[in-house]
């Protein structure tokens, strides 16, 4: 056997059949197998992605860290606000003065959702009233703006001031995008925030202790 013939045989064994197939057209049987193999590979790849993407979800530890908190409000004077931490969020508890409560009735027409009818952050039934609270003077709300999650700042002083209307009766101003809320956490019209401040589930353990994070069991 000459050298060139040996080379040809080796070539036939190595790459020959492929070029024969190319000349004779597509071997559809092999094509089908290639497609099936690619499909199986894709399914495997997707299946592998599932646990990876799932690992983005909150861990069991993060889920467990949502326990209710107890807050003592006996030292809270009229016109004062305190902030408690519940699930990493600020929860405001404010004792409103009679004048502040009275002002709530004056501004219904300026509010986006005066009766808290929207469903995005449903107001619990026990707070679905004009002062949005169990006891009229004590407001309990999550101090997180429904726009993009900043914590609004106190603007309790009535009257004209920067970023606020001239007939301001006291409330909260979000420093991020200028949304304003009244002293019951109700959002004003034509502001970026669509919803009133969330009222968390809560109840009075005693006259001066509030439990935040749970509704009262019947």
């Amino acid at each position, binding site marked *: 056997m000459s050298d060139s013939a040996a080379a040809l045989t080796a070539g036939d064994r190595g790459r020959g059949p492929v070029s024969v197939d190319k000349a004779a057209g597509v071997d559809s049987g092999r094509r089908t197998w290639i497609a099936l193999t690619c499909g199986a590979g894709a399914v495997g790849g997707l299946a592998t992605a599932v646990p990876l993407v799932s690992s983005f979800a909150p861990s069991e530890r993060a889920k467990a860290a949502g326990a209710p908190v107890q807050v003592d409000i006996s030292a809270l004077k009229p016109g004062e606000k305190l902030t408690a931490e519940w699930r990493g969020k600020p929860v405001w508890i404010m004792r409103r003065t009679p004048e502040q409560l009275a002002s709530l009735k004056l501004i219904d027409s300026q509010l986006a959702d005066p009766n808290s009818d929207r469903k995005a952050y449903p107001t619990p039934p026990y707070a679905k009233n004009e002062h949005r609270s169990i006891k009229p003077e004590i407001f309990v709300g999550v101090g997180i703006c429904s726009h993009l*999650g900043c914590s609004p700042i106190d603007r309790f002083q009535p009257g004209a001031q920067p970023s606020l209307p001239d007939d301001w009766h006291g409330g909260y101003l979000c420093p991020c995008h200028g949304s304003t809320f009244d002293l019951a956490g109700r959002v004003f019209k034509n502001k970026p925030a669509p919803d009133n401040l969330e009222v968390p589930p809560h109840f009075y353990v005693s006259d001066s202790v509030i439990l935040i994070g749970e509704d009262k069991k019947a």
Partner: protein
Amino acid sequence: MAEFKEAPAGASLAVKLTTWTENRFPTAFDAYKVHMSEYYAPKNFNAWYFFGSLALMVLVIQIVTGIFLVMHYKPDAALAFASVEYIMRDVPWGWLVRYMHSTGASAFFVVVYLHMFRGLLYGSYRKPRELVWIFGCAIFLCLMGEAFFGYLLPWGQMSYWGAQVIVNLFAAVPFVGDDLALLIRGDYVVSDATLNRFFSFHVIAIPLVLLGLVVAHLLALHDVGSNNPDGVEIKAKKDPRTGIPLDGIPFHPYYTVHDMIGVGVFLMIFTAIIFFAPELGGYFLEYNNFIPANPLQTPAHIAPVWYFTPYYSMLRATTDPMVNVFVGLTALGTLVALLKGGFSGMVKGAIVVAGLVIILLLKTFDAKFWGVVVMGGAVVILFALPWLDRSPVKSIRYRPGWHKIMLGIFVIFFVVLGYLGIQPVSDIGTLLAQIGTIFYFGFFVLMPWWSQIGEFKAVPDRVTFHPH
């Protein structure tokens, strides 16, 4: 495989070593020719052409300083803030590495914004450079991701509340938004879990994608060749003997040396900021970020870092009345398309249906969601630029005078939007931002029409070049 080369008899050790290497790794030698010594770039580049190579240099600065920062930084909500202060005070020269990285972030956006503006000026995104532009836009998106994820890492007040706001943007997506935001944060609030994953994105995931895109950007550019201030294709006029473009000069040594001038000027400014004003009046490093993150209290005035503020302004400008303006504009657009478009009956019907659907959607979802759409759309619309521009010439040099005015107004509005994004909300500011937002989108959406209007100048056959 290429022929095996033999070093000539009596060749020096260096020549022998080169021959030895070339025989075993010819790819490197080919790449040097294709991308450096035999890559012919137009000879009429001006100062605008510094910013591409500067962007590459800043990328290297960010990667190198980043590697050293990771050696000392701790991605843990309880330790992160203190570890950054540790780098600043206790790590030898740590302050320099950190300031290089923080100033580098802003410098990156400076050079990239100028680099993109160069593209706008000279039509560098036009055929056949569409993919170069698209890879570039993707790089811009990656940079924004890098900046955002990286900004959480010092765990200061602005880090925390900035992340809170941006992650909540995703919560505005109808139906799946809340779950999406939860998936990004990995917790119900921005927390240790969020910090850890942002660290991972910032130091490995996005940089890998970014590097791949930079390679694609450069390879695609070197395939089609660089544009130039005249918008003339230099490959159209080649030396018949050599096949080299008559107006082309080898990238190396001509532009490597040329770019070193740009690097020198850039480094003077860059190091001056690092040494004398690393916070740059609160624009490069915000003062509120020197306070550790406090989930219970938002700083009285929060604003993103300057490079995000134009888009942030657009987000704030999208209020309920603004959505009504969008409804009006959609109706107007539909009407004009019907009357002036010259479409057939079927298409007209489709336009009416599309217009009505858009109006219905605008009125269905909150302004909050549309604000997010506007913000994202302002970046995404850049990808479409190669197909929006229908001007018969590429370069601004040969476009009608009023195109220059349009581009000028566009730049002014972009700067004004950026300025407003730093300022607290005010009525007049919101109105200005709304006008700016409408102009920004109008500039792009109406470009297929306005870019054809006016008296265009004749484009020369060869580039204009005056030897010094």
